[in-house]
């Protein structure tokens, strides 16, 4: 029991961070830019530190996070992450062949480099803090066999996360770059949409925004919210019983993204390719 709980928590919370870091990493392998990779690495380290710090805060300074404190923090982090993802995707699309020189330039690269750093750190800190609280709290309170089970489950979860990361890199090398880029773009935009929609929904749930109209329809017969461990909700922004505000946010997000995608149509394929790759 402890084994599967630990495994699921570590792996599932890690998936979102993995998708973001894994895709950014794959993009940087394709268009090597050492400065950008350094910012990515620094983001990972900063994210891990923040995850530990945030986990410790959640654990110790409970008065800070009583009532709506946690919600405000989550809302802020989700909105920032969602916006940064959209910014990153549109930037990649519009720069096409000029990514490498732009990222390596002395000036002008800073906003994007910092964007990579912040997005990576955010992705890891957000999910990581929950894992930290779980591992520290539940791990330290258990004894004997259930402690072993937690440790084994957490390790297995990390391993699965590593495998997922490796599979993502493998995909980027084996399928045609155009296809991989399109798919990873789509995945990131879906994720950003889910983050922004979840943020709006949270705001409605703590009275920051009105629902306008509750539960416009009910498709829980077709697909329940908790199917697949919450995957539709967390990665796709699905709701079986959406309120009107969330519905409007969904439409506004996708309308904006489709406009942005049109405006930033990628350049025709004269992309610099590393020697030896297809």
């Amino acid at each position: 029991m402890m084994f599967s709980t630990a495994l699921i928590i570590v792996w599932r919370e890690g998936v979102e961070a993995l998708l973001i870091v894994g895709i950014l990493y794959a993009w940087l392998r394709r268009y090597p830019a050492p400065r950008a990779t350094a910012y990515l690495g620094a983001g990972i380290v900063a994210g891990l530190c923040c995850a530990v710090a945030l986990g410790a805060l959640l654990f110790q300074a409970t008065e800070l996070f009583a009532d709506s404190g946690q919600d405000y923090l989550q809302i802020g982090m989700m909105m920032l992450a969602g916006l940064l993802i959209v910014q990153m995707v549109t930037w990649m699309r519009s720069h096409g062949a000029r990514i490498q020189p732009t990222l390596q330039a002395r000036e002008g690269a800073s906003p994007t480099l910092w964007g990579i750093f912040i997005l990576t750190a955010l992705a890891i800190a957000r999910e990581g803090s929950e894992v930290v609280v779980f591992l520290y709290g539940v791990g330290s309170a258990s004894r004997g066999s259930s402690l072993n089970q937690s440790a084994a489950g957490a390790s297995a979860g990390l391993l699965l996360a590593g495998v997922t990361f490796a599979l993502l890199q493998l995909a980027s090398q084996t399928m045609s770059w155009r296809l991989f880029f399109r798919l990873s773009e789509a995945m990131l935009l879906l994720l950003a949409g889910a983050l922004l929609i979840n943020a709006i929904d949270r705001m409605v749930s703590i009275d920051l925004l009105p629902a306008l109209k509750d539960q416009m329809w009910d498709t829980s017969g077709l697909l329940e919210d908790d199917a697949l461990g919450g995957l539709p909700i967390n990665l796709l922004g699905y709701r079986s019983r959406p309120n009107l505000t969330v519905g409007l946010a969904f439409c506004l997000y996708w309308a904006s993204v489709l406009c942005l995608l049109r405006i930033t149509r990628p350049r025709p394929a004269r992309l610099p390719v590393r020697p030896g790759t297809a």
Partner: protein
Amino acid sequence: MALCLMLSGAPAWAEDPLLFDLVAREGAFQPTEIHAPAGRKLKIQIRNEGDEPIEFESLTLRKEKVLAPGATSAVIIAPLRAGRYEFFDEFHPETSQGAIIVE
């Protein structure tokens, strides 16, 4: 903004929420079922009396809240339609299933 306020139906939002207590102990919630009337704002005061942290979570209500051992926190829920809304403790999922039953 004014339009939003009008459409949101001022009376429901302006009322005081109905209070409920929920205690987390030994990987389970007490009570496992909360009965509430439809159309009223709800405030659930969660108290973690165990020695491990818990994460109160409801996918259908879009609520997630971590509580350290000994912590107390409130979860505010907008007026709901009749139905069954499940919640659980993400850190102890097998033993902590519960539901808010709205009628």
